[in-house]
């Protein structure tokens, strides 16, 4: 097992180098630079531009800038935002809890709906229930996030007025930032209605962000269950005379979950990338919105640093998934 973890870790360094190179190149390929963007339509004189460039270190050749950036990373320094002059890491840490909160709620929604839907579809294969689950999940999977978000907002926020349109909590509340998670902070604040407001703000974004993972989980669970249900050991379990629910939940599900767990883990990438659009639509103050804004401001260190952190998170989660995989699957636990 340790050997296996080390082997996986050794792949991490080349991956990081690839990511830094890619983000650095791409962000510098976008026309315009931070100074022009900040100056806006007023424009900026060439002398002033040169002066500011020198100040920000943007006058150096690109390879030198890249080198400087990588050396910084190696020392644990992601640089400062060109706009706010705040360290990238600080900004990230301030905003990250909002994204995590949203992603966790979306994941819970996806698992709570996707897993049972997949199981039912498999057990009732070929029935109307099965076809409906499959059709809905295919629809969910192909739904553009932007459009889906606006549709839900139109129906539930604008027409029915059940949920708020944007933000994390109603503006009438002033919540101390204790944990960074609004659900917890609003609960701790003890202010009447604050928690409820936080929950209602989370519902739509969670559904929007969780829809694609939910569809993926439902389909994967179904196909995995179908495969497992036709296995010989399921027949053995039934031959023991145990109750049908036990055959499904204990004997089939345990085996069927092995590939599903991998898929759930892979959804972390989907959640973080989906958060970018979702946060933008719902004005959710997380890292997705932060990254989009920093791209439009050409805030190079923020874009590079932000993407690097997100990539790190995805890599770590995938590693954890592999380990969890070994825990549920005795064949792997013993062989490695």
């Amino acid at each position, binding site marked *: 097992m340790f050997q296996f973890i080390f082997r996986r870790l050794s792949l991490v360094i080349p991956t990081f180098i690839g990511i830094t190179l890619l983000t650095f190149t791409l962000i510098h390929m976008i026309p315009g630079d931070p100074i022009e963007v900040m100056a806006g339509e007023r424009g900026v004189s060439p002398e002033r531009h040169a002066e500011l460039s020198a100040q920000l270190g943007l006058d150096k050749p690109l390879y030198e800038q890249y080198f400087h950036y990588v050396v910084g990373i190696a020392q644990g320094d992601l640089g400062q935002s060109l706009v706010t002059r705040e360290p990238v890491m600080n900004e990230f840490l301030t905003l990250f809890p909002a994204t995590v909160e949203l992603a966790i709620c979306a994941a819970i929604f996806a698992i709570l709906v996707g897993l049972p839907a997949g199981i039912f579809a498999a057990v009732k294969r070929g029935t109307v229930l099965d076809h409906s689950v499959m059709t809905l999940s295919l629809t969910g999977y192909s739904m553009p996030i932007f459009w889906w978000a606006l549709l839900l907002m139109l129906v539930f926020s604008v027409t029915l007025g059940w949920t708020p349109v944007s933000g994390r909590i109603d503006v009438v509340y002033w919540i101390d930032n204790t944990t960074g998670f609004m659900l917890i902070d609003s609960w701790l604040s003890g202010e009447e209605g604050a928690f409820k407001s936080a929950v209602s703000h989370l519902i739509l974004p969670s559904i929007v962000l969780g829809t694609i993972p939910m569809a993926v989980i439902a389909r994967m669970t179904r196909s995995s269950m179908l495969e497992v249900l036709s*296995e*010989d*050991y399921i*027949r*053995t*379990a*039934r*031959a*023991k*005379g*145990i*109750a049908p629910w036990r055959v499904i939940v204990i*004997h089939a599900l*345990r*085996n069927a979950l092995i590939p599903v767990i991998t898929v759930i883990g892979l959804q972390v990438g989907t959640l973080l990338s989906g958060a970018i659009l979702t946060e933008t639509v719902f004005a959710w103050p997380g890292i997705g919105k932060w990254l989009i804004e920093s791209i439009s401001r050409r805030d190079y260190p923020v874009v590079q640093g932000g993407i690097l952190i997100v990539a790190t998170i995805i890599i770590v989660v995938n590693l954890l998934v592999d380990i969890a995989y070994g825990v*549920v*699957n*005795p*064949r792997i636990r*013993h062989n490695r």
Partner: protein
Amino acid sequence: MSLLQLENLSVTFGNFRAVDNISYKLEEGEVLGIVGESGSGKSVSSLSVMGLIDFPGKVGANQLTFAGQDLQAMPEKQRRKLTGSDIAMIFQDPMTSLNPCFSVGYQIIEALKTHQGGSKKALKQRAIELLTQVGIPAPESRLNNYPHQLSGGMSQRVMIAMAIACNPRLLIADEPTTALDVTIQAQIIDLLIELQRKKKMGLVLITHDLALVAEVAHRVIVMYAGQIVESGPAAEVFRTPKHPYTQALLASLPESSSGKARLEALPGVVPGQYDRPQGCLLSPRCPYAQEQCHKVEPDNQGPLDRQVKCHTPLDSEGRPAA
């Protein structure tokens, strides 16, 4: 009262009759051999006794009783109480028949817990006893093993331990040695027979091994394309087969004097869903087939304990009746 009695049992998948009106009886403590090529309905008929035929498969019978209890009429829940306790089954491929996610101990204890219950300690003790009974060395440490850590023979022993956990009165063994090494096969059969005698179980032994059936079975049923073509006391059926199919099966044995390969003895395969012939189902492959064989399905002939389904049953010389 017989232990197991079926009368005109059929299993259909859509309009395909995988099992076609078979009838047989099994007495307490009796060994019944079922032989026939792959696809002749041996497994499906046994699974229907276990109640394990799934939708869209349909089971129908004039009678299907276990120790006088009507298996078809009883509610599902009551039937499950019999399945795995009074009626148990082991399968062809032991390596895939155990759940890879659970330890040997868990799977045996689950069988015990379902039907008998008891304290954790007592259950574990009983599981160790069972593993000892099926000849597994160091049973206590084996309880924590996972199926992938066991050999095929070992897995089949665990399957047997699970099947006999609740002292069944009827054990169905569906080709229990087909997937095992030749050297292991005899050990497993010896174990099964020993347990059958000790516990006085009824045993349905499904196998390709005719010599084995001749040796251990009291009675034998020969199945072809979902039908029983011949049945009777094992020794008699093998000494003087009355059905051309039984004769051909015997001729394909390596030790038979003719020494012909199987295909030579009887060219072709068991008809499936789409190529069922008219008349006698064996007629396209039968060396003795006459005109009426291709048109009219034969009836069962002979006394109840020695039946044959053929227009021209073979005489004691192995020649068809005129």
